[in-house]
């Protein structure tokens, strides 16, 4: 297993259990990010429960342990930037204004927009309201070419916008990853690729996926800058992602950031993670992004234990409300199944 010695890929400076911003950040901002991460965590845990209760059918996929990455990255975007997520992007959606109740309703297969029961709750595209781009989330890496396409449209129209494609480590193996990045690099398109390297693609460790230590080691193939960073520290995420986004927005072409992280739940809730070494699990549990952020906020961040707890409680309550709302939504009517196959 490539991941047996997880510390090896973390810069010693990053291998730490306390975090802090480099410079002063508005208290409201901090609270917003923390609430977002906490809401995502709470929502994910609820989704797991709904799955175990048989209310969510099929499977459910959670982002527990990875919340700092999309929160940090999305916090840097302009309203007209686009992004797409794969399976672990709930916090990013929430930061962009998606409501948990809608997510839960979609997981329950209810008749809510934009897919009215057609798609799993796992995936979301809603350009109009949230700038979340539709991507093809069936086949891994298919969103790198399409991300390049969105970025191409921005470039052709001379708009200073960027497209951020979140992607797992596993999704850096398919040919689409290569073809899409190649196209983006040739045309210097404003495409930022955020690799959430959580050590595994389903059960397959990094070493069985790639002959290099880091996904970022592949960047020379595209002649683009790339960095590896610790993904469980929201401040570190922002620091590194800012360089990437600024670079792309300035017209310098794509940029890849690989965040090392870990999902503390299985690939889906059906997966008991038997393939994960106990040491690795423990290493990352000590570095849980929510815990790290919480400790900072309660302490140096100045919110105090009570202030943080108030947010936690608020999140718990709002997810309960969300479930109630979602369960009250109607199922899609069978006869709508053939609607909206073709655009007018």
């Amino acid at each position, binding site marked *: 297993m490539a991941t047996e010695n997880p510390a090896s890929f973390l810069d010693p400076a990053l291998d730490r259990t306390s975090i802090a911003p480099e410079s002063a950040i508005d208290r409201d901002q901090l609270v917003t990010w923390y609430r977002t991460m906490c809401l995502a965590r709470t929502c994910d845990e609820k989704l797991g429960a709904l799955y175990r209760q048989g209310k969510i059918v099929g499977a459910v996929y959670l982002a527990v342990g990875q919340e700092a990455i999309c929160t940090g990255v999305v916090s840097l975007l302009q309203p007209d930037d686009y992004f797409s997520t794969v399976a672990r992007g709930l916090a990013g959606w929430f930061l962009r204004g998606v409501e948990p109740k809608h997510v839960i309703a979609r997981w329950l297969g209810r008749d809510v*927009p*934009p*897919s009215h029961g*057609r*798609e799993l709750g796992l*995936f979301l*595209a*809603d*350009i109009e309201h949230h700038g979340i*781009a*539709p*991507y*093809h989330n*069936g*086949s891994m890496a*298919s*969103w*790198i*070419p*399409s*991300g*390049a*396409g*969105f*970025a*191409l*449209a*921005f*470039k*052709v129209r001379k708009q200073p916008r960027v497209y951020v494609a979140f992607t797992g480590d596993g999704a850096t193996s398919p*040919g*689409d990853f*290569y*073809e*899409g990045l*190649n*196209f983006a690099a*040739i*045309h210097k398109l404003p495409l930022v690729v955020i690799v959430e390297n959580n050590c595994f693609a389903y059960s397959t460790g990094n070493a069985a996926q790639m002959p290099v230590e880091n996904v970022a080691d592949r960047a020379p193939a595209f002649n683009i800058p790339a960095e590896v960073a610790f993904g469980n520290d929201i401040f570190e995420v922002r620091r590194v992602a800012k360089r990437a986004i600024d670079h792309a927005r300035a017209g310098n072409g794509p940029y890849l950031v690989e965040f090392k992280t870990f999902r503390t739940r299985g690939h889906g809730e059906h997966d008991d993670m038997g393939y994960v070494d106990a040491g690795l699990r423990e290493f990352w549990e000590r570095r849980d992004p929510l815990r790290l952020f919480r400790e900072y906020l309660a302490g140096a961040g100045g919110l105090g234990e009570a202030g943080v707890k108030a947010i936690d409680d608020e999140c718990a309550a709002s997810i309960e409300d969300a479930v109630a709302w979602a369960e009250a939504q109607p199922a899609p009517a069978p006869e709508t199944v053939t609607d*909206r*196959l*073709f*655009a*007018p």
Partner: protein
Amino acid sequence: MAVITYLDAISQGLRDEMRRDENVIVLGEDIAVFGGAFKVTRGFLEEFGADRVIDTPISESGFTGAACGAAVEGLRPVVEFQFADFIACAFDQIVNYAAKNYYRWGIPMPVVFRGPSGGGFRGGPYHSQNPEAWFTHVPGLKVVQPATPYDAKGLLVAAIRDNNPVIYLEHKHLYRRIKEEVPEDDYVVPIGVAEVKREGSDLTIVTYGAMVHESLAVAERLSREGAECEVVDLRSLSPLDRDAFLTSVRKTGRALVVHEAHLTGGFGGEVAAIIAEQAFDALDAPVTRVAALDVPSPFAAQLEDAMLPTEEKIYTAARDVLEY
């Protein structure tokens, strides 16, 4: 109205749309500097510039995906596959992204995939295929296949203006062989509407693409022998104009389905099945199909001719149906 080739009709339709709508861009291999393997986009780079006429690396899946993304953002990309055979490399992006996007999210994706397809010119296994049946089985895609210069231009313009992904299969063997008068100005051939290319009362030949011409030739020959065939050119396979051929079959009582693609699993099976189900009472003879043999396209002339549906094979089958 000038008489132009099928190839020039495609060029003209594409160029006109690019002039009319700056959102239309073209991308593909060797289409800019070189003007395309078949020269459909000759002069486009000079006229529209490198932002709108893009030479891509050999990466069908990559540039197809890019075209899809750009389409969602309001561009109207027209993707050229150098040969339709290579559309297999972009299969996933087409059937799983382009086809399903609108159904899933209600977000339109106006993109056209041009596939120079078909055989008859000794291209061998990798430059002769007719891939339409892979796509007619995918809900969310439109599939068209023009047989004439007029339809080639009109369907291409319609495809570009359509807000859905359209697979536009142009037959390479018609490129320079088939000419006719084509209006210089703006018109569309609506997607989803078949055309009776020849009227007749004795037998309906349902066909499309290159086989329209062979079928018309057979119809002439049979006419000299006293039997009148109605030749229905589907033009669009998806959506399919069922009424057009069902009406015809109800009139003639006999149907022959002809296409250049392989017989087994070909789109002709769908057409024949529809006729057999919907026009059962009207049929005086079994619905018969003529198509390519179920082998890869061989290179040698003797073999390719044996493999392809020919005028002779269509004629023989038509006679059998007429004499049933």
